[in-house]
Structures are given as structure tokens and as C-alpha cells.
């Protein structure tokens, strides 16, 4: 189950305007390409919406800065501007769960939230669930139970499971199942996920 997102815009008109002339946002793909980026940026058109603004996002324990137009979703900001690719772009319409991230511990579809709304919040992707080189217990069990085939939906499922367990460590098997009813696995590895849920909830561990 995905929590409703807070859609209150915390960005004032001033901040919008401040960024409008600075088109450096455009195509800031990895940080290794300053020259190319500048080339693209110079050619970027006046945006049909408000221009880019400097924002800072707290992602997987790191403060990441970029210049991003307000229309950019959190998912696209992570993937195309900050080079954080664990959340996957599948439907971009909040219907598949592949882009699930944690916002202050709650599971959110990153495609359905604007990047500017995520400022000041703690964003965690599947990558950030790890402690150093150690897998999160959910990741460990997903791995051991082989609850993936192609693996594309896996980060979203893992994050959705992490959210429900963080909220309620005594979550039941049915709670877990409901926690992922907004996620699609087309390879159909639900049976393996059920085994994961059984182990996580102590049922049949």
C-alpha cells in the first residue's frame, strides 16, 4: 500500500524565478561531463514552465545538489540528474510500483512526486537500504529465496517491504502481501516472495 503523498508545494514564487535563467540543469547526467553539459545547457530553451532551481535532496544518506526544473519528478531527478538509478522507470503513472522509494520511512512512488517536494525529507532507495556493504535483511532474504527473475521490479518490492516492516515490525503475512499489491512482477515470482514474507513474519521461518 502506497501512502498518499504530501502535495503541498514548499517552493515560493521567488525561488522559481531565481532559477529560471540558470539553465545549467539541463542534462546534468553524471558529473563527469561539464563541457558537454554546458553545451547542452546553452542550447536549452526557455522552459514552458518555471525555470530550474537549485535544490538539495537527501538521498541514501548523502546530500545531493542539482539545478532542476520544478516540473521534474523525483524519479527523473534521481535517475537523470543525480545518477541514482535503483528506482526504476516503468509506467511513470503510479501504477506499477517499480519506482518505490522511502520518504521519511514511508513508501512513495517516486514518479508521482515532484523533486522539489522531496526537499528536506530523507529519501531512501533500494541501494540505500544497505548498511555499508551489508545487505538489508529483506534484501538478504530476497537474494537467498531467489525472489526475482529479471530483477527489474525487485528494488521496488524490496523498498515496499522495508516500509511496512519499519512501520510495524510485527506485520503479518497478509500485511506484507497488501504492502506490495501496488507492485507488479511480470515474471510472476510471487510464490518466492510469499516465501520471503513467511520468513520475515516468522511464519514458517
Amino acid at each position, binding site marked *: 500500500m502506497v501512502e498518499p503523498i504530501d502535495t503541498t508545494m514548499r517552493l515560493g514564487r521567488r525561488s522559481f524565478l531565481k532559477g529560471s535563467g540558470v539553465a545549467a540543469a*539541463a*542534462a546534468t*547526467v*553524471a558529473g*563527469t*561531463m561539464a563541457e*558537454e*553539459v554546458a*553545451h*547542452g545547457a546553452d*542550447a*536549452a*530553451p526557455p*522552459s*514552458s514552465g518555471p525555470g530550474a532551481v537549485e535544490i538539495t535532496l537527501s538521498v541514501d544518506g548523502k546530500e545531493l545538489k542539482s539545478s532542476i526544473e520544478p*516540473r521534474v519528478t523525483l524519479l527523473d531527478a534521481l*535517475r*537523470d540528474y543525480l545518477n541514482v538509478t*535503483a528506482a*526504476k*522507470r*516503468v*509506467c*511513470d*503513472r503510479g*501504477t*506499477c510500483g*517499480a519506482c518505490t522509494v522511502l520518504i521519511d520511512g514511508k513508501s512513495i512512488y517516486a514518479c508521482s512526486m515532484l523533486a522539489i517536494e522531496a526537499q528536506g525529507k530523507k529519501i531512501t*532507495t*533500494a*541501494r540505500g*537500504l*544497505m548498511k555499508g556493504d551489508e*545487505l538489508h535483511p529483506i*534484501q538478504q532474504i530476497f*537474494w537467498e529465496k*531467489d525472489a*526475482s*527473475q*529479471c*530483477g*527489474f*521490479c*525487485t*528494488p521496488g518490492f524490496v523498498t515496499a517491504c522495508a516500509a511496512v516492516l519499519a512501520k510495524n515490525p510485527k506485520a503479518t503475512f497478509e500485511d506484507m*502481501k497488501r504492502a*506490495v*499489491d*501496488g*507492485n*507488479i*512482477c*511480470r*515474471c*510472476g*515470482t*510471487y*510464490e*518466492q516472495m*510469499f516465501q520471503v514474507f513467511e520468513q520475515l513474519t516468522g511464519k514458517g521461518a
Partner: protein
Amino acid sequence: MATANETKTSSYRVIGTRPIRHDGVDKVTGRAVYGNDVQLPGLLYGRVLRSPHAHARIRSIDTTKAEKLPGVFAVISSADIDPHESKMAELGEGSVNLQYLCENVLARKKVLYKGHAVAAVAAVNAHVAEEALKLIEVDYDPLHAVTWVLDAMKDDAPILIDDLKTEGAPLPHSKGPTNIAQHIVFSKGDIEKGFAEADVIIEREFKSATVHQGYIEPHVATALWSPDGHLSIWASTQGSFTCRQQTAELLALPVSKVTVTPCEIGGGFGGKIRVYIEPIAALLSKKSGRPVKVLMNRADVFESTGPTPGSFIRVKLGAKRDGRLVAGDAWMAYDAGAYPAGIIGPGCVCVFSCYDLPNARVEGFDVVLNKPQTAAYRAPGSTNAAFACETVIEELAEKLGIDPIEFRLKNAAKEGTRRPDGPAYPVIGLVETLKTAKAHPHYSATLEGPNRGRGVGCGFWMNAGLKSSVTAHVNGDGTVTLVEGSTDIGGTRTSIAMQLAETLGITAEEVVPRVVDTDSVGYTDVTGGSRTTFATGWAAHDAAIDIVKQMSARAAEFWKCSPDEVTFDRGLFSSKSHALTFKELAGKIQETGGTITGRASVEAKGVGATFGTHIVDVEVDPETGKVKILRYTAVQDCGRVIHPSYAEGQIQGGVVQGIGWALNEEYVYDADGRMRNASMLDYRMPTAVDVPTIEPVMVEVPNPRHPYGVRGVGEVPICPPPAAIGAAIYNAIGIRMYELPMSPPKVCQAIINEASAK
């Protein structure tokens, strides 16, 4: 050369175990690099303009305004790609006509379906690219569209391709333009005589809606056309070499000038074999001088990439009172989609494939209509056919008063049975799956309660062999790096590595599998046709034998004896006076002449077909028509199972897709031929709350022609579910369903019709 079977007894040390997959950590942490995770310096974002009409003539395309939009680096249309003649290119599992492929990639003169690509833009970001698409002016002359296969076959149907000629068996009454791309006739014996002998004859008509493979990763391709003329592509593809070949042919480049790097792939199921956006990304890169990534959105995937055919099928079967089938007749019309697709071929092969019919006739049509060009989907063509044939089998069994599994056993195909299309079966395991299903506790379990019923169904897939190459490098620490060209969609790195490990007497963990680009390994066909564990595994076995041969020679050199005196068994090289483990000898190879690399390229013959028998319990809600799956058991002949978890996972995954096909999934079209449900919300695929526990039961009838007895596993489990669920619905509420999907509105309508008829 000795195969492993000859050198060892039945007890394998790696095969049949469940090592954890090599790429598992990357998958659970989101570190694995999929196509859309590729980033290159100066990357541009490509988007494709698609037709809003299902059928229209293109009068003109004006890209001037889009080109002038700041931030746009390139705009292309079919004017940027030279037309191709009608010529076939082999793609491994299937082939492609280059003229049609070219027109499908970018429409020329006409658009043939809503979503048909018309032009494309590369821009500094996706927003600018999308804005630029809106500035491209296309002048269309809309034409009538046709989306139902029988309508498209009528004399007065709108014609999609003016010069289309029907291939295959002659059509005596056909004259003038047609939408029938292919006509197939198979026959065996004398059906008139057969039906004359029959005591019971049942004939039924079946409709199946168009469904999509539904892989969740959208198509994505990144291309970099270097100034020296070399084209590099990072793609989400089931076959890097197939992608290379199609792209090279379309762009008139030698294959050696194109490098395709297969990224991790987020599902394919047959739908990521044909190219769509790879040539577009290449042309945009050439024009802009920058790397370009083209990504589809979800609606593009539904509306523009290969669904699998909708179909109309009529099946007639006749049997004697004692339960022996005497004749079968099938008439099958499958959607080709916008261009000839040929999935009717395997459909015709599969329709009667489970039964020993002395007299049979199968007639099939590949029909062009205003939908995206259809593509393979897990046992392409077989599921539609199984739904039809198996439902009639159920009705016959009921009419004859014979248990449905017993009836199937009386008529089951076995070694030597000749299919209507010609071939006779080698060793197959259908009878074993039927007997196992009959003996399974599920089949005899009590099923109580109103509106509940049990059904069974069988399915068949022929599987593919094709070409695979591997190289394997022995490292000084005793590990082996396995270099392969097979995209790993669901665990084949491990199932292939296990066959190498078994042959070398090392562990699966001591093999390091790497899927590499088209310049770094020999030609390998697609991951499809349930062929990868079978054929690439075979290549890995042969490469291991090559390594053993070379290492035995090194040992002989080391021990100063003749290579004939060196024997190898389960990881131990020995002579009369010496012995070294694989790891020990690997540590010495640098002192005795340097690196050892095993190589093998196979064109795998001896493919083993696969059969499955499924049992399902359902409960029908008579108010809403919703069908709930209560219990599911899937029995399958898997040949020798390499990694049981993966074989089970393939069976379960296939069943989940089969359940979706049976109960929910369909393309909904409006009168103008536009798909109305091109989203994951409205095209409903099963989630965790829709499926029960699916119990896989693996029967192992080893394929005698493979070194380790492997048969393909992945495709056949999608075939039986619709028929088995249909039978269960009948046993629950007494109504036979003849149309897929058996969705709540259709089941509800059937209940209402039944009530008003009484």
C-alpha cells in the same frame, strides 16, 4: 568426444542443486545496470512521435518548427532511412522482412496502427524532446481501420498493404488485394473418413483477445555513432546479435561496424527480439553527433510493440464411444498486426500437438490488420490453440463419460506419434505428466462449496535449439570466467555456469559468468524459445571438455608422461603416479605454457519438446462474474532439471501470465481502432493478491540428445491455464466459456444469458 554422460554415472554434484544466483546481489540492491541506467557524456534524450490514427495515409511531414526549438539537436523521419526491398533476415526464433521492419521502425507513406512511429527527436532533455514532438506537423488522410481478424479477411475490408501477396498454400477464391499474408494447410490421413467413423463429434468456435507480453521494463536503447563510422548500441534486448543484425541491415552497415552491448533486461517473453527504437537512436546520434537514449513510455510499449495475436479458432474433434479420437479439424485465423508476423505457424503446429490423431486437418491464416505487428510471447501461438483444443477435449470427455485425464491418456501423443504438420516425436513426457497429475493429491482432493469447480488442461511447446557460443578462461586461482552472449532474463547465467562447473568438477560459485557485447563472444542467438539453458548450456559443456583436454595435456607435460596416461574425473587430473585437483593444476598453468581458454560454438540439434498438465480449482462469484483461483498445480516434463528453483520459477511465472491471459488481460479497441486501455491500471496484470500458491511438479524425462538431458522449460507453462481455468469454471457454474479473457463482465454476461435461456 566423450560427453559427460559417458564419463560419469547418474549422480551429479552441481546439476540438480540450488546455488544462489551470481547476479542476485546486484538485483536486490538496484545496482544492476539495465538499459535506462546507461549514462554517457553529453547524452541526449530521444522521443518518438507516434500516429494518433489506426490507419491513415501520410500526406506530408513538416519538421521545421521542431528543428528550430532551442535544445533540439536532431529530428528524423522515414526520409532519413533508405527504403528496403522485401527480403527476409533470419532472427533465430523467427525471421523478419526488412521492408516491413523498416516501415515499422518509421512509417513511410502510411501509418497502419495507432502508435506507429512517424518521426523522432533528440533533445537536451526529455521535456524539450516532448515539446518538440508537438511542433512536428503531420498531415494525415485517415482511412477506415479494421481490428477484428474475421473482418480483415472479408472481401470489402480496408486493405493495409496494397501489394501484399498470400504466401504458402494457394487460396483458390482469392483475387485482388488481400490482408491474408500467409495460408497454411497441414493434413494427415483422411478426415472425412475419420469423422464418418466417429460416434461423437463436437465443434466449437473460440475467440481470444490481443494480449501483451507485459515485460515491465520499457524498450530503451542508447546509441553512439562515432565519427569513424562505428555504431555502438546499449540495448534492452533478448538477442544482442539479432539486434546487431537488424540494425546493421536497416542502416546498410556491415555487422562488424555495429557493436551491441546487451544490458540487464527487465523481462522480454519474446517481445524484445524485433528492433523498434535501436535504429532510431542510431540515426538521431548520427545526425546530432551525440549519444542518444530513446526510451518508450508505457503507452508506447502497449500501442507500438509486439502484442501477441488475437485470434478466431474453430475446432472439431470426433471420437469413438470407447474414447479413442479418430479425427480433428481446426480452422485458425490469427492477427498478424500491421505487417505479416507468422505466429499462426506455431499455432497450427501446436493445436493438436498433444494428441495422437489418425486423421487431422489444420488450416491457418496470418491476417494483417490495424494493430501493432504481433510478436512472440512465451510459446507464441500455442496458448490460443490450447484453449480451443483442450476445451473441446473436455466436452468430449464429459459427453463420453470418461475422466478427463483418462480420456487424454487414451489419446496422448508419445514417442513415434506423428503430428499433422509432419514430424514424429522422439522421447517425450506427456503421458508421464498426465499420470503424475492423476496421482497427485490435488486431483482427488475434495472440493466443496457452491460455485466451485476443478479443471485440467494440457499444453505443448516445441522449444528451439539454434546457435550459441561461449569461451571460458581458466584463472590461476582455479576459478573459470565464462564469457557468453546469452542475455540473462531469469537466471541463465547460473544454469549455464552449472553445466560448465559439473563438467569441470568445480562448484557453480567458482564459475564467473559474464554476458558480453557482440565483439567479445561468438555469434549467439536470442534468449528465447526456451533454448538458453539447453543450447548455451551445451556450448558451456563443450567448452569445458575443451578445457579438460588442454589441461590434461598440460598435466602430461608437467608429469612428463603421455597425455593418454592422464585421466580426468570430477575435478581430479591423475596419472599412475600423480594427481592434481583442477584448482591445483590451474595454479600451475602459467608455468606450463600460459593461459588456457576453452571455446565452443554449437548449432544445437536434438531439441526436446515439452508438455505440461495443469490442475486448477476456482470459485466463481455469480454476482460479479469474478473468478478466484483457489488452488493450482502445474505438472511439467522438464527434462533433466539443472537448477530446480529456476525451473520451478519458470513454471510458476508462466502460470501467472496464463492466469492473467485467462481472466483479465485484453486490448480494448474503440470503433476507430484505438486501444483504450494502454496503461498498467487498465490493462490488468496479476499482482500478489491475485494469485494463489502455485505448486510446480517437475517430471524429469531427460532429453537423450543433450549432454545433460536438458529440455526447454520456460514457455509451455503459459499454455494450459486458460483451458484448465475454463474447464474449472464450467465445473463450478455449468457454463462453458469460449472467449478470452474470461473476465468478470464476460462471465457475468454468460451467467445472465444462461439464466434468460432457461
